[in-house]
């Protein structure tokens, strides 16, 4: 394959990925691939050249999201055990992917096992960073001695509730941007001794 042809192929793949992200975020994971082809301005068949199955396309989007979250958190060590900064960074990275993340939270239960497990792996990555800091603060008696998963799930529960009801809390707006400080303040006041 010539270099030019390879470049074109890579560009088409990127267009499909960007279009899929938009279409799935807006319409859900059951959106037809024809809608993605329209959005990407490519032929319907070309989607399957790059992604033989719709599941492989879902997985690709999840892996991209996972890599982005991973990169964000790996650049975080300078904040040490500052829980507030970690929570801020978590919400910031979710704001970058807000529509896609909201869709994931809403529909993860219907996704095939591998995609669902990738979502669990993403949360696992986040939990490593948050819980390292939270456990240090528990040992210093700054944070209440609550089981780690309950701390993590309470934090996710708050975020997910506001996301899923965004139409009530922040119509036509980013609910995470609007409630970022309130959610962090509330969570910290709940967990601190």
């Amino acid at each position: 394959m010539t270099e030019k042809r390879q470049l074109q192929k890579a560009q088409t793949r990127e267009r499909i990925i960007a279009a899929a992200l938009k279409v799935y975020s807006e319409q859900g994971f059951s959106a037809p691939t024809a809608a993605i082809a329209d959005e990407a301005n490519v032929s319907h068949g070309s989607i399957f050249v790059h992604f033989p199955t719709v599941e492989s396309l879902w997985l690709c989007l999840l892996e991209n999201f996972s890599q982005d979250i991973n990169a964000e958190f790996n650049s975080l060590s300078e904040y040490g055990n500052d829980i507030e900064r970690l929570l801020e960074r978590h919400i910031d990275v979710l704001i970058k992917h807000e529509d896609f993340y909201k869709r994931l939270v809403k529909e993860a239960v219907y996704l095939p096992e591998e995609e669902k497990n990738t979502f669990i792996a993403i949360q696992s990555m986040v939990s490593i960073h948050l819980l390292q800091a939270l456990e240090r603060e528990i040992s210093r008696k700054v944070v209440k001695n609550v089981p780690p998963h309950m701390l993590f799930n309470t934090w996710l529960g708050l975020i997910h509730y506001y996301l899923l009801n965004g139409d009530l809390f922040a119509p036509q707006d980013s609910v995470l941007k609007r409630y970022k400080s309130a959610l962090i303040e509330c969570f910290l006041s709940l967990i601190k001794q």
Partner: protein
Amino acid sequence: MKTCIACGMPMKNTSDFAMSDESKDYCVYCARPDGTMQSFDEKKENMTDFIIKTQGLAREAAESAALSMMKKLPHWKNHFD
């Protein structure tokens, strides 16, 4: 930056490496107390326990997620063929 061949964790600091030895390809969490690397079953068990501890999932769901994570790591490839 190296990532652990057994769990994928980025190893940024010397203390992240097994036995704090930067020549190792696996992390402190994937090492046994004597510094050797955990077996497939030990790692699966460990990852499952970690997911239960951090996310509170039921064991079967946590184990399925742990296997999915391990499947993506070249080091464990032979166990899934």
